[in-house]
């Protein structure tokens, strides 16, 4: 009986080691490329599956494996893959590509693109994927941010949507009626707080980084931007409470529920609002500035890793996506903005997208900075403590800039 026990245990050990050591990598003769795509909506997976199927039919020697990752996990997953030298061939991500380019992980795509191919893009969007003179990221899609307002609320108060900061304060005070309605939703959290900070910073004429690559968030304009945001909260009391914890998506919900009069967000907002509250009438204008209005554009990109064994095949797949048929299909399914001229022209008169396509043409983009993400997190923290009144605004910005310049940007 005892022997039985020993046999059982020993076989267990063997089973375990067998399971572990036995390699399972199937050897395929086909060229196989891995594509890590980010999840935008429930339409994302079906779209890529269909596109891959069509691509594989046209290119029988190539197999594309699509791995769709939720946005919340994209950074974690990519970092892990890079760390283990297991990068996919193609990656779909946001501005963090600059860091990968800076670390020499990405393949420059210029030599793959002829003039005809370069020509299909809206030039500003193609340019947003350039770092140190080389193209690393191709735009997958774009969004544009504007100031959305509740038409009924502004109409009832008899005010026009604001164009400048002083307008903005006037309109806010006119419609503010807490706790029933707060004039302005201003989510400055570490979930896309950089967009909100940019709205104020750029409006004040400031910028994140100067031409020498130094963080200048504490410039005079930067301080003015922060003080303006702080006044909205503390002095005018027009901001939806919880601005420092309730993120953009939840502030959107508050606006949809009629609790917030105005907020800055992206072009996909109306379609969400429509599905949840069909009675809400939304208007949109460019983001009010201290002196002039502007728009913020955000591009998500496709890139090829240097370690890829099948760069040409990977590029062919990317190229396939830009066929008018597929790009347009994706854009419409996701409610995003196109990056090619052909699709833009096609959708110019689209009632939902046309207006935003126009806004995108004059949009400003986030700077291409390898340490963008950590820098942004520091600045968000500084803005939060300053507006909460836990630290003097000037000191908060100076400290953040000092930390960024000495510890983050030098990396």
């Amino acid at each position, binding site marked *: 009986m005892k022997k039985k026990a020993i046999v059982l*245990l020993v076989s267990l050990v063997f089973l375990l080691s067998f399971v*572990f050591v036995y390699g399972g990598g199937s050897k395929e003769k086909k060229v196989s490329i891995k594509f890590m795509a980010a999840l935008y909506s429930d339409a994302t997976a079906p779209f890529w599956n269909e596109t891959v199927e069509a691509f594989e039919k046209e290119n029988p020697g190539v197999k594309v494996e699509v791995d769709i990752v939720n946005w919340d996990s994209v950074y974690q997953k990519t970092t892990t893959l890079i760390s283990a030298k297991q990068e996919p061939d193609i990656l779909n991500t946001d501005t963090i590509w600059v860091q990968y380019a800076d670390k020499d992980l990405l393949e420059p795509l210029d030599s793959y693109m002829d003039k005809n191919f370069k020509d299909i893009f809206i030039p500003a969007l193609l340019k947003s994927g350039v770092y140190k003179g080389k193209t690393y990221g191709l735009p997958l899609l774009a969004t544009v941010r504007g100031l959305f307002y509740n038409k009924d609320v502004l109409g009832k108060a008899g005010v026009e949507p604001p164009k400048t900061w002083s307008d903005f304060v006037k309109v806010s005070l006119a419609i503010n009626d807490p706790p029933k309605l707060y004039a302005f939703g201003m989510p400055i959290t570490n979930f896309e707080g950089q967009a909100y900070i940019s709205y104020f910073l750029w409006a004040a004429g400031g910028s994140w980084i100067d031409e020498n690559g130094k963080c200048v968030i504490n410039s005079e304009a930067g301080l003015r931007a922060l003080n303006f945001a702080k006044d909205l909260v503390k002095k005018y009391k027009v901001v939806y409470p919880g601005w*420092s914890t309730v993120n953009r998506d939840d502030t959107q919900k508050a606006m949809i529920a009629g609790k917030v009069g105005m907020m800055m967000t992206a072009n996909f907002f109306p379609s969400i609002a429509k599905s949840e509250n069909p009675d809400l009438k939304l208007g949109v204008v460019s983001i009010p500035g201290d002196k002039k209005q502007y728009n913020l554009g955000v591009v998500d990109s496709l890139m090829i890793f240097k370690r890829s064994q099948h760069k040409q095949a990977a590029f062919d797949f990317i190229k396939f996506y830009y066929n008018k048929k597929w790009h347009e299909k994706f854009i419409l399914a996701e409610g995003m903005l196109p990056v090619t001229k052909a699709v833009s022209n096609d959708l110019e008169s689209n009632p939902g997208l046309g207006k935003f396509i126009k806004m995108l043409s004059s949009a400003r983009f986030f700077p291409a900075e390898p340490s963008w993400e950590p820098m942004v997190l520091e600045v968000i923290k500084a803005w*939060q403590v300053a507006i909460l009144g836990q630290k003097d605004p000037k000191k908060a910005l100076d400290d953040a800039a000092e930390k960024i310049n000495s510890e983050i940007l030098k990396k």
Partner: protein
Amino acid sequence: MIRLRKEEKIAYICILPSFILISAVIFFPVVKTFINAFYSLDLYGNIQHFSGFDNFKRLFREDVFLRITINTLYWTVGMVFITVAVSLVLALALNHEFIGRKFSRIILILPWAASVMISALLWKWLFNSDYGMLNRLLRELHIISENINWLATPKTSFPAMIFVGVVISIPFTTITFLAGLQSIPNELYEAARVDGANKLKVIYKITLPLLKNVFFIVTTLNVIYIFNSFPIIWVITRGNPASQTDIVITYLYKKAFLYQDFGIASALSILIFFLLLTFSILYAKLIYKRGE
């Protein structure tokens, strides 16, 4: 002497599979983390060069370090204390015969049956001031007259998250207590009853001492799990504003995957390890003061 040797052999064979499994899967990464803490690491966690205590120094210089330490203590002690207290009382109650007992036990496991991320998402939504069900419920019960914005400031959001954690931790804790209660032979109770001891005295003199082992396991495991519990805070406030609702583990995730500062993240892991270890040893000593 010889018999002991033989027994030992059996023991070693018995623990071998477990030992191999743990060493193969967990031990190597853990040792790696230890080593990493003393090296300068690149953005993807690969070793650059030896840097001594540099990572630790940088960690202690972090402006929010004190805040997240206090938060973590508050989070862990508060949640474990409430969870264990509620679960113990609940388990004692559920050990009684009453109508609906079986049904109650099924409901009890619900928060455990759903993934923590989903529960956290759901609660975040329930806490919302305008379209969240909690405010509506409390208004209908006339507990509040105006909507409360639960997640607006750390003062309310942090306790709210502890509440969520307690609800999620109760099932496991209660079930374990229940199983422990059932391993107490009925004769002991009957004997006590014959002796004329009242209910409270029975609980105090018989039940609780016999639950010591379970109590120790439940508390230790809860401390470790709750200390390391990530999804609730990540989903509900993500540490906002300015890390004022971060605990060590959420901060560690941020440092590793948003800041990509793996040096600080490794140093922080080592710190967590020693904290939990100290706690476990002290706690074990406290519980087993009078020998085993």
